[in-house]
């Protein structure tokens, strides 16, 4: 009423004064790079005229002077001033300010103002993250946060990712703990990126300690989007892209192949120089193919992402519902490398009274993967596509007696029936196209994930809140794998029941299993947040948590299906002999109590302490409980009086923290000795260890946050030391006493990680060209400090790696390359004790103990599998309606064992090779890097540094150009079109297919694809 009076008076005054001629109505839209912004405060500069943008970012201000300036301000965004200049429509694009100090960051079970945080917590810039358009939200973290290493296991759709926060803390499970809306989980592949509102990474022990027993691998807190009271909104986000394989090795063609193998044949003992090799003879054959197996295997892949959401609400209730689809058909031919995911999400928050709030956030997702053998050997399609000789065609000649329409693929080289066998000149390999064609391996997961909560505020100022949260994670999985019989028949005994069947999947079989897993997390917290006398800020939290997890599975299989077409790929239609069925279950539970307290004085001094006590079903009575304390402090130096004059420093904060986290990721009942009396053999399956206890990670962190020029430039540095003691590890007991059984879990030793992390953020929004740079780099040193006497070293992979005190975990171990023997006297002088058939042209290994022979004693550490440096550089900018951004990401100081190189270029069997073998040693002085071609051992069969390659890389992960329309098309409130490229280029010395793969031993991995994406974002 009072406002109306004033309004009328002002109106009257303006009319009377005639200034109405220069006053106008201004309409507009406020948005950021990801869409409209509601609730933005818009103030006419120098007046009291204020308005707020609605849920669609729309605003209208009447009677504005045409020379006025509008001030747009919104929490978490840089304030922006735009002169009206007579425009009736203003399109305001705000840039988020990730460094804003009053930003609220979600921390364990509560939230804190960024300024009061004393641990190493990084909140993720969601704008930058959203540009990496991948299926898994976790993968989009790549390059975004210092000290967070992310890598895709393979490039095959749905194959999962690996995340390490601050290095490999243990030899066992290092996985990150995700907490999605208060519900802990180890896997977030069910989430759709556009549902994520914020992510914070808790890197140090102080920040993670509140999650105690499971936080040792670091914690990523994720909050999903919720509805906001105001006008309802409907958003659609769609993109589609095409994918290609890149960086493929150059292989020999048929002509080169036959030439190279001819040379190898002549360099093989027993073959006379004058003799004509079978390869030379075959060069005259007309029936040889010239197959480029990579061209045959790879094709263009397609990805599609669609997400629609509706949200809105009133003061009493807010809602958001969304549905999404992500689908990708990978870069391998046919449709057997597909991943599809459907998501549905409902978020409702209701204020039952001004003290009592309830809500739910429920997500349904259904993911299905068509799984190919995307890495490894037996039978990895990538590996076989590379090793298979080009002389073999993809399809058999139609006149070949073993040809059939349903199985037209070549298999064993020039196979001519069981009695004649196959040509020995061309090595046994599998036809990758046949494998792809006959693979039918479907993995489906149906998941319900979410929570229900109630929150009640006590006390007159509502400063004490009780919150009860029930998290559910229910998964149903269904895997179905039909192994179709294919390939050449190679049984020549007609009485054998499998006579005449192809050699793969003999007989055909169907394996099907269904599992269910249910995890309930029930947490209750009491949180007191209060500021007293504007000086003392207090945040106290006590709580309990109770996690129970139960899973079970049943499965069945049958063989010998008469009819193998799709409608008969069900268990009922298999033979009734050799029926298998299986069933199993496993349960665990965790009970926890925790407390934390933060005290701040005058916004200058902050101290936080937490304590968590966990009891786990996985430990025996002796060590059931683990206790995980932490303490941290911060000092905002810039708030001190003596800093007042240093006005270019807007923020300077020093942080220090210490804390302990735990790890309980061992099998259920690892402490018990278990016996299976029904198996074959019956007996002890594993000896238990009653004294096994929690693995503890103790971490100390020192950090500094610096903001310069009103935080336009901000800088964060951290130094951490992380020591994991009592690492949970299995040891093989002496076989002499126990035979060969499962390994026993022990607390085996200590591993340390230390490193520096630097983050830099620069933003400039002062001009029409606005930009934001977000760079980060982290170093890491991993070292095994000690191992118990009975685990002197750990050869987790028996032949390639070794874990020993003083070395990084799982370091590569083998012979050291020392050139190529150039002549016979060099061989005899080096290998004076036992040359073991070594010839000139063979690889020369370092004889470390100088005993004149090469044997296992000459092996040493030859490579480090843990990256020493990880970095990311994100740039985003806008100019008028255009926006442009890119992300560079890379790792340095990491090696990988390129086992593919071994089988391609160093094997003694006639597989295909890369063109690198064209430079092989062929007489004294011809090469000191590539040994002679031969079918004998030229040293290439040994595990050696020849195959350890620098797998450092720099990759342009994404580059995106967008255009936001500022016209109001009927019914459309916001419209942005963008084009994006992913994995556009990679700089690396690694000669394998993908330096990013996570395999310790790269046997040929489905590569990350390059892709081009077009997308649209619309708001109705």
């Amino acid at each position, binding site marked *: 009423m009072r406002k109306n009076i004033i309004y009328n008076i002002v109106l009257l005054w303006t009319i009377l004064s005639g200034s109405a001629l220069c006053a106008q109505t201004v309409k507009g839209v406020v948005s950021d790079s990801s869409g409209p912004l509601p609730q933005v405060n818009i103030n006419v500069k120098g007046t009291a005229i204020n308005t707020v943008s609605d849920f669609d970012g729309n605003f209208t201000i009447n009677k504005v002077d045409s020379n006025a300036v509008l001030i747009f301000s919104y929490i978490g965004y840089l304030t922006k001033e735009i002169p009206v200049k007579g425009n009736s429509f203003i399109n305001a694009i705000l840039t988020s300010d990730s460094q804003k100090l009053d930003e609220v960051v979600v921390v364990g079970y509560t939230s804190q103002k960024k300024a009061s945080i004393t641990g190493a917590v990084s909140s993720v810039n969601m704008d930058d993250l959203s540009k990496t358009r991948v299926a898994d939200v976790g993968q989009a973290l790549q390059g975004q946060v210092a000290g967070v290493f992310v890598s895709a296991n393979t490039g095959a759709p749905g194959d999962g990712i690996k995340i390490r926060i601050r290095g490999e803390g243990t030899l066992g499970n290092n996985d990150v703990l995700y907490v999605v809306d208060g519900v802990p989980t180890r896997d977030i592949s069910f989430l759709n990126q556009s549902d994520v509102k914020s992510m914070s990474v808790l890197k140090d022990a102080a920040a993670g300690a509140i999650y105690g027993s499971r936080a040792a691998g670091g914690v990523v807190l994720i909050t999903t989007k919720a509805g906001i009271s105001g006008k309802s909104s409907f958003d659609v986000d769609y993109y589609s892209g095409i994918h290609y394989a890149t960086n493929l090795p150059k292989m020999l063609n048929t002509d080169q192949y036959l030439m190279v193998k001819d040379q190898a044949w002549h360099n093989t003992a027993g073959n006379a120089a004058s003799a004509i090799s079978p390869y030379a003879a075959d060069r005259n054959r007309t029936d040889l193919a010239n197959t480029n197996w990579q061209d045959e295997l790879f094709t263009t892949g397609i990805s599609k992402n669609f997400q629609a959401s509706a949200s809105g609400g009133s003061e009493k209730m807010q809602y958001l519902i969304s549905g999404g689809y992500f689908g990708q058909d990978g870069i391998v031919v046919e449709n057997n490398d597909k991943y599809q995911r459907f998501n549905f999400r409902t978020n409702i928050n209701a204020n039952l009274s001004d003290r009592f709030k309830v809500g739910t956030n429920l997500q349904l997702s259904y993911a299905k993967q068509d799984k190919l053998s995307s890495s490894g050997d037996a039978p990895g399609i990538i590996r076989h596509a590379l090793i298979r000789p080009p002389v073999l065609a993809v399809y058999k000649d139609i006149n070949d007696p073993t040809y059939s329409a349903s199985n037209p693929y070549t298999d064993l080289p020039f196979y001519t029936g069981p009695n004649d066998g196959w040509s020995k000149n061309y090595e046994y390999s599998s036809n990758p196209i046949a494998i792809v064609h006959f693979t039918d391996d479907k993995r489906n997961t149906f998941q319900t994930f979410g929570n229900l909560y109630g929150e009640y505020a006590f006390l007159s100022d509502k400063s004490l809140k009780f919150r009860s949260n029930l998290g559910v994670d229910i998964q149903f999985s269904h895997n179905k794998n039909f192994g179709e019989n294919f390939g050449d028949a190679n049984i020549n005994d007609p009485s054998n029941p499998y006579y005449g069947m192809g050699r793969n999947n003999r007989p055909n079989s169907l394996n099907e299993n269904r599992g269910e897993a249910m995890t309930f997390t029930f947490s209750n917290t009491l949180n007191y947040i209060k500021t007293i006398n504007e000086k003392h800020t207090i945040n106290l939290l006590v709580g309990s948590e*109770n996690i129970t997890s139960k899973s079970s599975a049943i499965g069945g299989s049958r063989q010998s299906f008469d009819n193998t077409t799709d409608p008969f790929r069900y268990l009922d239609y298999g033979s009734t002999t050799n029926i298998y069925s299986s069933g199993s279950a496993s349960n665990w539970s965790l009970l926890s109590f925790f407390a934390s307290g933060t005290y701040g004085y005058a916004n200058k001094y902050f101290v936080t302490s937490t304590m968590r006590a966990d009891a786990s079903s996985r430990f025996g009575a002796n060590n059931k409980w683990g206790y995980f304390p932490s303490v941290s402090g911060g000092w905002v130096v810039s708030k001190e009086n003596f800093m007042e004059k240093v006005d270019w420093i807007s923020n300077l904060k020093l942080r220090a923290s210490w804390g302990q986290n735990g790890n309980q990721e061992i099998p259920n009942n690892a402490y018990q000795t278990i016996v299976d009396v029904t198996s074959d*053999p019956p007996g*002890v399956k594993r000896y238990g260890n009653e004294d096994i206890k929690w693995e503890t990670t103790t971490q100390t962190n020192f950090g500094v946050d610096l903001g310069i020029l009103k935080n336009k430039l901000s800088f964060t540095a951290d130094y951490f030391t992380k020591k994991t003691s009592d690492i949970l590890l299995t040891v093989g007991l002496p076989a002499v*006493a*126990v035979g060969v059984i499962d390994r026993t879990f022990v607390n085996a030793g200590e591993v340390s990680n230390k490193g520096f992390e630097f983050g830099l953020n620069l933003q400039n929004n002062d001009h029409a060209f606005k930009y934001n740079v977000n760079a980060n780099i982290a170093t890491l040193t991993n070292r095994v400090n000690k191992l118990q006497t009975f685990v002197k070293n750990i050869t987790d992979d028996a032949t390639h790696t070794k874990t020993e005190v003083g070395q990084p975990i799982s370091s590569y171990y083998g012979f050291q390359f020392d050139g190529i023997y150039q002549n016979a006297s060099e061989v005899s002088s080096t290998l004076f004790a036992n040359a073991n058939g070594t010839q000139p042209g063979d690889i020369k290994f370092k004889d470390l103990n100088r005993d004149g022979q090469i044997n296992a004693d000459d092996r040493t550490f030859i490579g480090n599998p843990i990256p020493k440096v990880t970095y990311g550089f994100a740039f985003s900018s806008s100019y008028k309606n255009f926006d442009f951004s890119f992300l560079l990401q890379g790792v340095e100081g990491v090696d990988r064992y390129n086992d593919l190189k071994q089988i391609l270029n160093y094997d003694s069997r006639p597989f295909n090779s890369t063109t690198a073998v064209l430079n092989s040693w062929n007489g004294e002085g011809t090469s000191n890097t590539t040994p002679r071609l031969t079918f004998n051992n030229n040293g290439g069969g040994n595990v050696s540094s020849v195959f350890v390659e620098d797998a450092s890389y720099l990759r342009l992960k994404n580059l995106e150009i967008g255009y936001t329309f500022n016209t109001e098309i009927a019914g459309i409130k916001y419209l942005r079109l963008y084009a994006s490229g992913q994995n556009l280029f990679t700089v690396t010395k690694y000669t394998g297919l993908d330096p990013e793969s996570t395999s310790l031993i790269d046997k040929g991995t489905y590569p990350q694809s390059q892709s081009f994406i077009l997308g649209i974002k619309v708001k109705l």
Partner: protein
Amino acid sequence: MKNLFKTSILLGLLSLASCQDELTQDPIGLTTLEQANTTPTLNTLEKSVSSSYQLLSNRLNILAEWDWGGGLVFQNDYIMQDIASDDMEKKWSSDGDQPWIDEINNFTFTSTNGGPNGLWKYDYEGIKRINAAIELLTKADIETVTGITTARKNQLLGEAYFLRSYYYFSLVTNFGDVPLILAPVKTYQEAFDVAVRADKGLVWDKIKSDLVLAKALLPNSKYSSPTEKWRVSKGAVIALQAKAALYTEKWAEVPALVDELAGLGFSLNANYFDSFSTSKEYTDNEVIFSYDHQSNATPRKGNGICAPLGWGFFAPSTDFLNSFEPNDPRKLYTVDAANQNVNKMLGSLDGANKGNDDAPTNKVYMRYADALLWKAEALNETGNYSGAIAIINQIRARARTTVTALGTIPPVGTLPDRVASTDKATIKAWLISERRAELGFENQRMLDLKRWGIAKAVLTAHGKSFQDKHMLYPIPQSEIDASAGTLTQNPGY
């Protein structure tokens, strides 16, 4: 408001109380050691013994999936006793595949080589299973608890004592002093306590005393069971007693034991190959102990060594092929060099089973011809030269009267009888060459060479760098490491 507060706290506490029980969970589908030891079943007893045979099989991947480097894909007899000797090569053509086998072949191996590792682990895995079986079978109340008959119990126990002595025989002859473990360990700490090497004399004593027990427990017939001919028989026990006496040079004991075998019905087959042919299994006269392989069994029971044969593994050395006397039919029955078929290992003469990882071919461990030659050796050592020569000629006669693999009759003059002699060394030399021809590719050669003290001379002449330390294989480094150093290494490694 206060009520609500109290209610919610109460609810929270209640939920916690209910959870406490779940913090102790019994393993699903598995029992604890105490439960298993107090309530064994008949099925457990039978399986305890039958599973103890498995380590003698050539089934692939019994102990680990495709652990080639660790020597665990199949048991390493052929590598440690034949490839290491002058008889066998790794493959028909040399290459870089499985370099650890090359190391065994040319004596550059160290304690990390997969060969000794596999040998050791197969034997001790067998001993562990046997110890568990013996512990159960010797429980005072086992008959009442499980309902097993006394006769069956005795038979199983007899088999178990034999198998334990067989595994220890392999260990003591390859490694010398070895830990003598005779009961299952109860805790993981105990596993470290027992990993201490015992003097080989004690091991031999235990082998012999176990065999005495076994002999008394097994039925007095050629087969322990007419329906399960694969089981250890009294003949197997006696043969191993004779072999143990031979290896410990108790010459006087050997002939009588070998004679006992004849009494049980063992004799030489008319055709040399009948001991190996898949079609003659358990119908021949000669095989005393073998592992029964079967195709398409569930769980798998096939001979997997035929798969590496298909990949070109296990080839004769030129020296071995040249060592046969003219027209000796045993040469082609052992190996068909023209077609690269190791007939004796395939159990066929036409390449059948080659490449099949689930072949029916039995693995023969002891046969009567072998035992006869032990007797000949003992007779020679004790001065009964004519007796020794008679046995050698018996073996030669069977060989030359065998229809060849090509279906022909060996020409007259093939493998003529050895003439009378009283020169012990001459007869020993005949014996040595007879054993090589008769028992080629049967895992005897390297043990024989070591036993006769001629390994260094023969293998050096063959171009290998055999040193004195190689009389014993090294204790696997992984075991020394796993024992935290309580296991000691053999000298020289």
